[in-house]
């Protein structure tokens, strides 16, 4: 027998050595240098991570009554690979879930491993589905946001999306606090998707979100909303806004905008109703702005309180003619008379004495042209033209509240400043937060700043009280109580060109009570009421809310204020 040549054997051996060497090197790479990576990838394939939703914190009113709560719910899903008969399954699920059979069947036949059939369903609905024991149908823990009072303060609270994240209002603003920290369950599964006995099964519990305690008084909010809805209907207005505020702390007790919506079913409401108009929409305030002109004039000493001006009914300013609401002969008026009778011409005359620089300065100090800092999503800063763009006409119109725009909240803050003895207080909507263990952490007190002297504020208060007692605001009077306030009837600017709508107005009344010791500021604003004037449309709305405020806040009448010099004939 012939022996193989030695060279061949050596070559074969060398080849095998090389082959084994390559295998060895590859194995070394796989088992040593890349071992951790492959191990992790393999583990990752076996692991299933399920997010455990955290319970969202509540939103409470100032008395800790719930305005928004979270309820336990279930998401129902399907893994179409395991659904035996999609049509039969869909037919059985349809009446329970209230969904179309065709729609469900389409989802059950999708080429995927996961499809939602229903989100955030009640537990009893989930239990009914569970009892059917349908293959391929599964359940996930979820929570559902619920607003127990329905439309109440809807625009302030906002709403959350289907995944539980805040989309508007306080729900959006305090998302980080409310959301909490979701937990996670990690399970090791076999190739059939079944948990491996003794495999990894770790659960990290979710952390509940903190609750937000608002400054809103739920009962006050309800009464304000009822009064607003009734006023809108009675005056056939397009909408309206009401703000109730504590001038000392800046706490907003009620904030309502009509038309409103139910955050429980926000998808069904027109998106324009979502806006919290008290904060997001600016309007030309009209005569309610005269309080700033008056306060500035008194604070700067631009006019003595007993100084009498001869006020005509109209006046030419550049190429424009401006006039008072009603024709009259030349009237002798003091500053107090001008405010009480809401004379545009008289206000312009006072503003000219004051000067545009001083007026602009006071408008800014009262908070116009800047956000109030209430920290609400979408807050408008209003429009205050920069001083360098002012003309003679600007000085005239801004003095009586046209050519400048402010939010209802900014205007309420202006009156709160007068009521708070000349100190501006930043309005606030949140009293503090409550952690899941029940610990309440109070929000820091609102910052304040001096705008006018206490004496000026007291003088302006007496003017405003006169406006209610014998001026344009008599419809706001309440027997036994002295109320300080001012009417406003503002024209509405055209959206696309200079000029104003003809015969359409924003009617407003903003005031506070008791005049001698103000404890509540109320702003009542109606959009385009057919009754037109603030004194007719908005003052009764103010009165109704003020009447409730007296009982709700147990307000005492207070002492009567001294009257200011007047040049008008007294009744």
């Amino acid at each position, binding site marked *: 027998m012939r022996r193989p040549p030695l060279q061949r054997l050596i070559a074969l051996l060398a080849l095998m050595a090389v082959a084994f060497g390559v295998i060895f090197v590859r194995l070394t790479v796989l088992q040593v240098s890349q071992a951790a990576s492959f191990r992790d990838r393999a583990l990752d394939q076996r692991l299933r991570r399920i997010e455990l939703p955290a319970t969202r914190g509540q939103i409470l009113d100032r008395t800790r*009554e*719930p305005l928004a*709560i979270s*309820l*336990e719910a279930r998401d129902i899903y399907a893994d179409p690979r395991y659904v035996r008969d999609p049509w039969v399954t869909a037919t059985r699920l349809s009446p329970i879930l209230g969904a179309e059979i065709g729609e469900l069947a389409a989802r059950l036949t999708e080429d995927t491993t996961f499809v939602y059939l229903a989100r955030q369903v009640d*537990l009893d609905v989930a239990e009914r589905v569970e009892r059917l024991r349908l293959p391929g149908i599964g359940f996930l823990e979820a929570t559902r946001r*619920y607003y*127990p*009072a*329905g439309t*109440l303060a809807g625009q302030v609270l906002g709403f959350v999306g289907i995944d539980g994240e805040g989309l508007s209002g306080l729900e959006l603003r305090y998302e980080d606090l409310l959301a909490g920290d979701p937990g996670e369950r990690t399970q090791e599964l076999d190739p059939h998707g079944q948990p491996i006995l003794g495999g990894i099964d770790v659960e990290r519990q979710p952390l509940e979100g903190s609750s937000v305690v608002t400054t809103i008084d*739920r*009962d006050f*909010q*309800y*009464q304000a909303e*009822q009064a607003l809805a009734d006023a809108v209907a009675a005056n056939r207005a397009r909408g309206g806004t009401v703000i109730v505020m504590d001038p000392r702390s800046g706490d907003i007790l009620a904030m309502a905008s009509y038309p409103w919506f139910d955050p429980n079913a926000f998808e069904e409401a027109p998106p324009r109703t979502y806006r919290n108009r008290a904060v997001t929409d600016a309007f030309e305030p009209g005569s309610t702005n005269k309080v700033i002109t008056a306060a500035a004039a008194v604070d700067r000493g631009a006019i003595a309180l007993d100084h009498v001006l001869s006020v005509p009914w109209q006046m030419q300013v550049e190429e424009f003619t401006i006039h008072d609401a009603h024709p009259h002969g030349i009237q002798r008026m003091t500053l107090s008379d001008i405010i009480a009778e809401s004379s545009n011409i008289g206000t312009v005359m006072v503003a000219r004495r004051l000067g545009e620089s001083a007026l602009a300065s006071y408008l800014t100090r009262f908070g116009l042209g800047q956000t109030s800092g209430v920290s609400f999503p979408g807050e408008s800063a209003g429009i205050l033209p920069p001083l360098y763009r002012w003309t003679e006409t600007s000085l005239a119109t801004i003095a009586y509240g046209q050519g400048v725009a402010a939010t209802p909240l900014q205007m309420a803050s202006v009156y709160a400043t007068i009521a708070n003895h000349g100190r501006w207080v930043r309005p606030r909507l949140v009293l503090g937060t409550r952690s899941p263990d029940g610990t309440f952490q109070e929000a820091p007190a609102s910052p304040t700043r001096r705008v006018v002297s206490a004496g000026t504020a007291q003088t302006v208060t007496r003017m405003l009280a006169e406006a209610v007692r014998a001026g344009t605001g008599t419809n706001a009077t*309440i*027997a*036994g*109580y002295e109320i300080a306030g001012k009417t406003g009837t503002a024209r509405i600017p055209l959206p696309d060109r200079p000029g104003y709508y003809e015969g359409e107005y924003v009617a407003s009344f903003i005031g506070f009570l008791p005049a001698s010791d103000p404890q509540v500021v109320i702003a009542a604003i109606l959009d385009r009421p057919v009754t037109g004037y603030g004194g007719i449309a908005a003052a009764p709305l103010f009165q109704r809310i003020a*009447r*409730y405020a*007296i*009982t709700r806040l147990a307000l*005492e*009448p207070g002492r009567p204020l001294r009257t200011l010099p007047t040049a008008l004939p007294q009744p």
Partner: protein
Amino acid sequence: MSVPARRVPQVPEWLDGEVARAERANPPPQSPPVPPTAVRGTRRRRHRLGFVILATIIVAPVLIGIVSLNALLAQTSLRIDEAERRIEELSREHLTLVHEQARLSAPGRIAAWARRNGMRLPDDIRSLHTSGGSLPAPAGEADASVPREGEA
């Protein structure tokens, strides 16, 4: 004529020492020799009995302990399951009650109920002023300013 060699009975190696010790302690009697098979059987029975007793003493309590522990664990596990189920039930009940309380205490619902029952907010507010700064006398007490019967 040759005689076949007599076979010495084989003792397992592990018993060698023991047997030797036993023999030293109790030298074999000079009585007639007992047949070797009978001696081996008695010893084996004795050892088996010892083993059984030893096993019974050690293993039985261990077995009983294990079974008891297992039962205890199972029982505890059942209790935990039961407690967890109860906690879940109560949590759910609590949430239902919170939901119910929130719904029932909504101002709109209360106002509607009040309206149905003929209640309404007052139309007007009247403040009563006391004259002279003194509080009115409590009901039932005589007014000091009014002369009593018989007084001058």
